[in-house]
């Protein structure tokens, strides 16, 4: 494919300016329907509340750790909304809000971070891969699964979420290459939130935009204002459609910012200044979409109140779920290591059972 057709827009695609007014960098993309934008708003409110609740639960020791995605709700929600029920989402540790938006129950989303199970939901039923901790490795799984679905004639797409820092890992590059060579129906969605723990983007990559990385692999690429939910949804809808139509994978970079620290255990004041954070707080994706929808009379005050109230109820259910500590069965440690327990595991299981009896 000719390089020009793969190139991202010169500036990030943007439908809504920071003050909530209509911007004019939407390019070729059509604006998503009003109902979809309203649903995005509802889920962003829910996601923000979930994030605040999860962070609070770390302080009470209910969660071992929580990587907040506050400020990235437009990306989180759009990633889930762009997919059909049959499509697969490949999230990382940071993408809990995307899982909430995909419809997973609060207890299911947080079992990993609470320390109950590595994956608290059924990936086959939910079509959400386990949240991935080793960086960039999931991008290859998404490419492989997308290729498998295509070969089986399934009309499904995989979307892999990845951070800016993780794009430096070899697996990311191998995944882009494999996906492009095999024309796999997969969308790689980079949330460039400017930091990999403490390392700023400038030390991560010399590229002006990570979206430029797609072209070298022969892959269509795009960059988008990650705090503009309208734009992110428009671009991801289009990318998913492109992949679904068999036209090959797409790389999308969203320019956004991580408002909170890397996790609750991290002290972000050691590596970034308050002024920068304050500036990005102003770019709040939630406020922006709210102002925009209100100005177009697509969203009423009573709806806003209703969504906030629903989010409160949801937060309460998160607390309830997390406060009810389930009994964990130590003997389940030996389950699912192999299809059938090996003789060695059976012996160890018996030994632990005896120890528990004693």
């Amino acid at each position, binding site marked *: 494919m000719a390089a020009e057709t793969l190139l991202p827009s010169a500036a990030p695609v943007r439908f809504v300016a920071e003050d909530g007014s209509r911007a004019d960098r939407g390019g070729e993309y059509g604006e998503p329907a009003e109902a979809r934008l309203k649903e995005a708003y509802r889920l962003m409110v829910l996601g923000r509340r979930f994030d605040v609740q999860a962070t609070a639960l770390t302080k009470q020791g209910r969660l071992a750790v929580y990587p907040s995605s506050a400020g990235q709700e437009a990306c989180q929600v759009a990633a889930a909304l762009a997919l059909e029920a049959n499509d697969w989402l490949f999230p990382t540790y940071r993408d809990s809000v995307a899982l909430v938006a995909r419809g997973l129950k609060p207890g299911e989303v947080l079992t990993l971070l609470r320390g109950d199970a*590595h994956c608290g939901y059924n990936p*086959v039923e939910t079509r959400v891969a386990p949240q991935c901790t080793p960086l960039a490795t999931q991008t*290859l*799984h998404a*490419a492989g699964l997308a290729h498998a679905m295509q070969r089986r004639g399934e009309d499904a797409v995989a979307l892999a979420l990845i951070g800016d820092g993780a794009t430096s890992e070899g*697996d990311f590059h191998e995944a882009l290459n494999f996906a492009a*060579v095999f024309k796999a129906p997969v969308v790689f969605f980079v949330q460039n939130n400017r930091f990999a723990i403490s390392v700023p983007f400038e030390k991560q990559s010399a590229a002006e935009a990570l979206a430029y990385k797609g072209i070298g692999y022969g892959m269509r690429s795009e960059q988008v204002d990650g705090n503009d939910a309208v734009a992110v949804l428009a671009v991801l809808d289009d990318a998913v459609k492109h992949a679904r139509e068999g036209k090959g994978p797409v790389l999308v970079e969203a320019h956004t910012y991580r408002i909170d620290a890397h996790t609750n255990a991290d002290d972000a004041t050691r590596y970034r200044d308050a002024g920068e954070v304050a500036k990005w707080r102003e770019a709040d994706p939630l406020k922006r979409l709210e102002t925009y929808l209100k100005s177009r009379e697509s969203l009423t005050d009573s709806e806003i109140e209703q969504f906030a109230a629903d989010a409160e109820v949801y937060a309460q259910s998160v607390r309830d779920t997390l406060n009810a500590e389930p009994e964990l069965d130590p003997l389940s440690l030996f389950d*699912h290591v*192999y*299809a059938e327990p090996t003789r060695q595991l059976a012996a160890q299981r018996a030994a632990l059972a005896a120890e528990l009896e004693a």
Partner: protein
Amino acid sequence: MTTTMAQALNAALRDALKDDDRVLVFGEDVGTLGGVFRVTDGITADFGEDRCFDTPLAESGIVGFALGMAMGGFRPVVEMQFDAFAYPAFEQITSHVAKLRNRTRGALEVPMVIRVPYAGGIGGVEHHCDSSEAYYTHTPGLRVVTPGTAQDAYDLLRDAIESPDPVIFLEPKCRYWSSEEVTFTRTGAPMDRAVVRRPGKDVTLIAYGPMVATALETAEAAKDEGWDVEVVDLRSLSPFDDETVTASVRRTGRAVVVHEAAGFGGYGAEVVARVTEQCFHQLHAPVLRVTGLDIPYPAPKLERHMLPDVDRILDTIARLQWDDTPVVAGA
């Protein structure tokens, strides 16, 4: 039919591709070329590019992509061109392939085979002769098998491809070209069982992969010394077949473990520990090891000094306290 191990593996792949549409073969140069060791010779021509194909040159990519395809219902059999070139894929293997079933509490499984031509003895240059079994056997969730004979190459590969668990399939390169009688219907023990290759009364040699042939040769040579040597071929390194091994050692009362890999922290240490724990009262002597040296795999002209051979194994058997001479450790 008289066949080489490489041909037996080729036949196993073909039969698996015929029997099960979900089986796919891919990796570096496995298509048109048929693999650098010709294990996949002619498969693309006969089964089409859909079933056996070349990928971009990236080991982590191959394994991670295969995992995704396994999630999507296929049964990939991938080739790592040489042992030490599988290391870029180590992360995918240990963090994902080995653990996906467990992480998802059984919702997803990874029925895939990672074929690794391994070990030395072929005059290969560096990075082409590593014995990497200890890295894989130390990883729960993986099955690790290695054939010592052409018949086992066929049987074990068929079993591995049908296994619902991921299998690291270690192919002893130096045995690829050895011919023997093979039947292409499965004859062997189940994949997780060791076999007694040669019965004997005085001492058990525990070997696997490239060292099975060396152990059998040693057993022949030992007759001159008046020792009747039993040879156990482990076949499955993980899980380990305690029953077959300990039954043999209880009969003979003496055991020597032989492998090419460096001894320190090596697979043989696990075998010695298990045998000692389970056969202590039947043992007439400590269980000894004959292993490669604790050095990076040497240049080809020096490799014969690294590899365990008949003489070194015989010398070790001689140290098994046939009289009251104390055994010297770590020789």
